[in-house]
């Protein structure tokens, strides 16, 4: 077989591919930031001494862990807009609704998984850490934010890196609702050029490069933690 990358890297196709790469990266970064922040909030709520709060968080996690990601994206893109008031639907539709709904579905799903990882990180901490914060006069939420969650995130770092990789790869599912991310634009280039190996080799290279970058960031954060802990 003869490989010809020139055929898929003409100015127009290169532009599509770069557009797809930028969209994938934007989808990942925005949903990651929202997922991480929501996970921290979920853990703080779920660890509070109120049964109702714990059940609400457990329900949220169960929904997102037990239904396929693609179904969740469809629910947000096709079903939720029917529940919104008409003016809001129009506004969302004129503002890249595919991207927005896919991002919401992705970040909520990742938040559920990340909150479980942070929760197990939290359980690995000595209970006296909460007591030490409260004894200084810090509130429950202040102690969570400044004392417990930073340590829980460090303890859960390897698992959180895994979730980040899963989230990054799951961004490709957004093509199903028409988000022009990397998988979608690659498919388009492949459709036009019939250069299947070349286009998906480029897409794979993109995914593997960003995945390695995520892993390298995780390893860097881990080294920094170990140094701080005196190792």
């Amino acid at each position, binding site marked *: 077989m003869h490989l010809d990358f020139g055929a898929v890297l003409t100015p127009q196709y290169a532009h599509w591919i770069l557009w797809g790469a930028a969209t994938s990266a934007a989808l990942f970064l925005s949903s990651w930031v929202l997922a991480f922040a929501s996970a921290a909030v979920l853990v703080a709520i779920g660890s509070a001494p109120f049964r109702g709060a714990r059940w609400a968080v457990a329900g949220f996690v169960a929904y997102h862990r037990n239904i396929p990601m693609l179904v969740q994206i469809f629910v947000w893109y096709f079903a939720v807009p029917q529940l919104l008031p008409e003016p809001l639907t129009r506004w969302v539709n004129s503002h890249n609704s595919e991207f927005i709904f896919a991002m919401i579905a992705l970040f909520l799903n990742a938040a559920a998984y990340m909150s479980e990882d942070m929760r197990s990180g939290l359980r690995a901490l000595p209970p006296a850490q909460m007591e030490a914060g409260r*004894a200084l006069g810090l509130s429950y939420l202040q102690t969570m934010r400044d004392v417990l969650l930073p340590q829980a995130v460090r303890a859960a770092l390897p698992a959180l890196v895994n979730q980040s990789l899963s989230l990054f790869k799951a961004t490709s599912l957004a093509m199903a609702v028409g988000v022009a991310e990397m998988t979608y634009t690659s498919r388009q280039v492949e459709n036009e050029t019939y250069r299947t190996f070349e286009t998906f080799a480029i897409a794979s290279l993109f995914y593997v490069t960003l995945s390695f970058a995520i892993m390298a960031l995780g390893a860097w954060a881990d080294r920094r933690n170990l140094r701080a802990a005196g190792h």
Partner: protein
Amino acid sequence: MIVFDKVEKWYGSFHALKDVCETVAAGEVVVVCGPSGSGKSTLIRTVNRLEPIQGGRIAIDGRDIHGPSIDVNELRSHIGFVFQQFNLFPHLSVARNVMLAPMRVHRMPEKAAREAALALLDKVGLAHKADEFPPRLSGGQQQRVAIARALAMKPPVMLFDEPTSALDPELVGEVLTVMKQLAAEGMTMVCVTHEMGFAREVADRVIFMDAGAVLERAKPEDFFLRPQHPRATKFVSDIRHA
């Protein structure tokens, strides 16, 4: 300053504090001792509401601290508490450990908080460790940081829960030195400790507890030389031979 009035505490069916009536005056240093499980840690933990009580009343400067109108965070910010296991925050530098509560609870600006923290660390002899992380410090150093962290809120009263029990013997002295210095400055202190030397040198009073009840209160020299209650006599003889 602190008044215990008929305090009762239960853990399920276990009667942890029995009819405790005690008064700690401002500037007083009180040592609480007794065999393990006697309720002495529980007693000081009720003072900042780390433990609820089921009966009686604890008042600080006349305020019923277990009453419904008390803001527990505000209350605790005026009571320094030092734990047996130090419980420093391992992910924060030594200075940050000391700065956290003043910055969050008192909204102190970072620069002022750091200056105050460095002054306190200097007081406990650890200014040079300000940017080190707690796991790299010895137990004695960690406990001195924990004392500085509690002092950062400028509490009028300090509670110590067996502050030297988790330390290697050669590290006990440096912590006691800091505590003696605090006592000399007029700090109101309630210390759960078996350090007889400390009690004799700085305590105004020793309270002896067993099985949740206060069995004896005496001046330190009287308590250690002439304990009255039979269980106090046995306790003093036991720690002498330890």
